[in-house]
């Protein structure tokens, strides 16, 4: 049977990458002082599965490489080898190397042999090193494909040991043979396939009916197979019962090629009549050279099957894994929609005015189901943020050991879900921020101790939902931002005026300015000048914002607010003149009516009104967008929508509130160009276009 193995490759690669990730996180979690054997076991299993799979699917390079890793890990698992930081680092390096190998193979590219050789050498050095408590067993680096061809430990399968006539086998099972599920009858059937079989059962050991235990094997057999059969094949049949029986395999007549004379004499001793010997005509010498060739021809065929079959690897697709529960929910919803649709169809068939109620009911149901369906579909795009977080332990481990700092990374809220597109885009800014914290935030162990802090610094990476947003915080307990230094630096760089007075918040914001870097000297970890301004720009491009709080000596917290998805938004539609605008619901605090009397006009600074002891500036929307308003001057006839943007409250004066709805965001940039104060557009139920307001942008715009 021929089976196309390449169909399993995609799964195999996915599995390998998952396994590597598990190995990596296991290695990073190993606590040198207190080794958790389950962790070692998990790492071992990772290497073991990759080895097994790569051997089976024909990736010999990978199998050879993982074999060494596996051996090392096996010794660690058995407690024969001490787990050292050095060994862990070598293993981490190997994990990277494997990942590269697998990626190359997956993309049908050549494997970087020098890198592989380097890591393999490092592993072997570790393996042969003195770290063992017992001498390490030699690394047998045989290609598994070849050893697998014939699994015979006795090693005496030289093809020369042929016999023209066959074999005589004395097979005496121990009582427990049947209890392993082995069945002599099946073995005899196999023997019969090799040649002509005669079996003689010795029943003299069967006890009386009252002593008989039917689960025990009380029979022994004398078997004779005639034919041209290599001993290896006979042995293979009995391979599994070795140790469960007494087995004696003798050639009926040995050919002159075989040096062993002993079996013959032994046989002769055991069975003086030797009826088989009588039926033994002399071997025809001419046939001898032929047979070994036959066998030799067979042997290379097996390794050939294990040659790498890389050609059919499916290119990596940008697929996502979805929880089956989510798909079930989706299918369920589709079912509901279909039911509603058929119900509406029924109403429409013979429509009469008395069916209006039924129609309304159906439409309401359709609306609910569409909303649910939409949510289910959006849900499929949602990924836990652990997809991003999971790579940081390694980053922190590598960088902190490079810097000589002791740092613990805490991950909180890894299961918080976020849209796939946001996941892809948030990674780089986060890497940058974490590198910054590692490099500039956390102090060297000595200075930490001197400051009365624990030697090990902590970086907490935290994600949670708040309102319609996801918040990601990076909290370190380093030395914090020094506002005096920041201001001095900004003045030196000419970024701010010498006499400027800045609040703490404004001072911290300085680090987001282009060309600002506080590190006294640049390191290769962070601080190449393309820093925080890019981070901020990227995050704002995602519709999010970034905030920084810090206290000298205590640490720094950077909070990133991001929308859950970039595709859909809950909006409040408002009317301004004949136009409709959408205000994101998350930014609305409340909507109120006020009268002209409540307004305070400040010369040159616009209008404000007082709301519970707070003065709130008013933005007249029709002025900003230059639209004819119906209530241009009469405050009492319009509505004030109080919104919050970048921590500032603001009142949007509009003509009317229309209704809440979910809107699909269409990019304005893609179809027109970027407009300040507008984040996008959407299409309303009647087909007209409405602009979606960018509240923080509006606030900024109006304060100018």
């Amino acid at each position: 049977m021929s089976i196309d193995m390449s169909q399993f490759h995609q799964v195999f690669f996915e599995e390998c990458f998952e396994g590597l990730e598990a190995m990596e996180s296991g290695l990073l979690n190993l606590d040198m002082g207190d080794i958790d054997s389950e962790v070692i076991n998990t790492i071992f299993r990772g290497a073991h599965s990759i080895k097994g799979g790569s051997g089976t699917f024909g990736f010999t390079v990978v199998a050879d490489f993982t074999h060494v890793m596996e051996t090392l890990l096996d010794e660690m698992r058995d407690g024969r080898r001490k787990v050292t930081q050095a060994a862990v680092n070598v293993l981490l390096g190997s994990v990277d190397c494997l990942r590269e190998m697998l990626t190359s193979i997956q993309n049908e590219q050549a494997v970087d042999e020098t890198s592989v050789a380097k890591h393999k050498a490092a592993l072997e050095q570790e393996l042969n090193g003195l770290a063992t408590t017992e001498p390490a067993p030699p690394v047998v680096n045989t290609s598994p494909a070849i050893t697998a061809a014939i699994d015979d430990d006795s090693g005496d399968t030289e093809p020369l040991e042929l016999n023209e006539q066959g074999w005589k086998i004395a097979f005496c099972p121990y009582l427990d043979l049947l209890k392993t599920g082995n069945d002599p009858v099946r073995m005899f059937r196999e023997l019969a396939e090799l040649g002509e079989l005669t079996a003689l059962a010795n029943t003299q050991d069967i006890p009386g009916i009252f002593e008989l235990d039917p689960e025990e094997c009380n029979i022994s057999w004398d078997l004779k197979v005639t034919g041209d059969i290599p001993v290896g094949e006979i042995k293979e049949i009995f391979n599994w019962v070795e140790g469960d029986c007494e087995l004696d395999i003798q050639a009926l007549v040995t050919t002159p090629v075989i040096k062993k004379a002993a079996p013959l004499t032994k046989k002769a001793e055991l069975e003086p009549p030797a009826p088989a010997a009588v039926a033994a005509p002399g071997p025809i010498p001419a046939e001898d050279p032929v047979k070994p060739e036959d066998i030799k021809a067979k042997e290379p065929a097996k390794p050939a099957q294990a040659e790498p079959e890389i050609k059919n690897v499916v290119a990596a697709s940008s697929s996502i894994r979805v929880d089956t529960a989510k798909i079930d929910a989706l299918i369920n919803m589709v079912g509901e929609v279909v039911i509603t649709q058929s119900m509406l169809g029924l109403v429409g068939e013979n429509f009469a005015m008395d069916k209006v109620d039924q129609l309304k009911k159906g439409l309401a149901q359709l609306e609910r189901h569409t909303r649910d369906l939409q949510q289910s579909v959006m849900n499929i795009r949602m990924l836990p943020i652990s997809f991003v977080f999971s790579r940081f332990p390694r980053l922190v481990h590598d960088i902190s050991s490079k810097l000589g700092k002791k740092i613990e990374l805490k991950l909180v809220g890894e299961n918080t879900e976020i849209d796939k597109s946001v996941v892809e885009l948030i990674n780089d800014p986060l890497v940058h921020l974490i590198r910054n914290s590692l490099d500039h935030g956390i102090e060297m162990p000595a200075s930490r101790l001197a400051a009365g802090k624990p030697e090990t610094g902590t970086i907490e990476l935290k994600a949670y939902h708040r309102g319609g947003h996801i918040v990601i915080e990076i909290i370190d307990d380093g030395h914090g931002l020094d506002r005096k230094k920041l201001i001095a630096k900004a003045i030196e760089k000419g970024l701010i005026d010498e006499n400027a007075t800045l609040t703490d918040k404004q001072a911290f914001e300085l680090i987001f300015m282009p060309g600002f870097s506080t590190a006294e000297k640049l390191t290769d970890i962070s601080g190449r000048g393309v820093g925080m301004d890019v981070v901020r720009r990227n995050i704002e491009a995602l519709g999010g914002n970034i905030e920084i709080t810090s206290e000298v000596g205590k640490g720094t917290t950077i909070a990133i607010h991001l929308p859950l998805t970039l595709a859909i938004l809950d909006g409040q539609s408002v009317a301004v003149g004949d136009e409709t605008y959408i205000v994101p619901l998350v930014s609305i605090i409340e909507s109120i009516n006020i009268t002209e009397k409540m307004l305070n006009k400040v010369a040159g600074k616009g209008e404000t009104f007082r709301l519970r002891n707070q003065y709130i500036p008013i933005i007249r929307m029709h002025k900003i967008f230059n639209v004819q308003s119906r209530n241009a001057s009469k405050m009492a006839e319009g509505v004030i929508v109080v919104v919050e943007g970048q921590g500032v409250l603001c009142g949007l004066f509009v003509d009317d509130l229309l209704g809440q709805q979910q809107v699909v965001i269409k990019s304005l940039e893609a179809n027109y160009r970027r407009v300040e104060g507008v984040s996008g557009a959407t299409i309303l139920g009647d087909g007209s276009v409405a602009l979606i307001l960018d509240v923080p942008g509006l606030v900024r715009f109006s304060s100018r």
Partner: protein
Amino acid sequence: MASILAVDDSASMRKMVTFTLKSAGYDVEEAVDGVDALVKAQARQFDCIITDVNMPNKDGITLIRDLRSLTSYKYTPMLTLTTESGMEKKMEGKAAGATGWIVKPFDPDQLLKTLKKVLG
């Protein structure tokens, strides 16, 4: 046709084994580890069990030991999938009651050939 329970924590190996066996006409069910397998083996009677050795939750050796202690699996052939370096594991498997082993890496033909040994 004979029914087989294929146990492996590695999805690719499991798929390969299942696909091979199904192509040969066997009735195959999959289990992801020893715990899963034990539940499935008790839900219906299989004619043969093929199990990986190294698995989380419950390894193959323990699975075989547990199954052997059940009356319904007393004589059922059980094979372990093992690596060539694991002579110890083979013996450990046998001590637990395994019928035999299939050495990794194997190709579909080897698998079917070995299976014929126990299913006839």
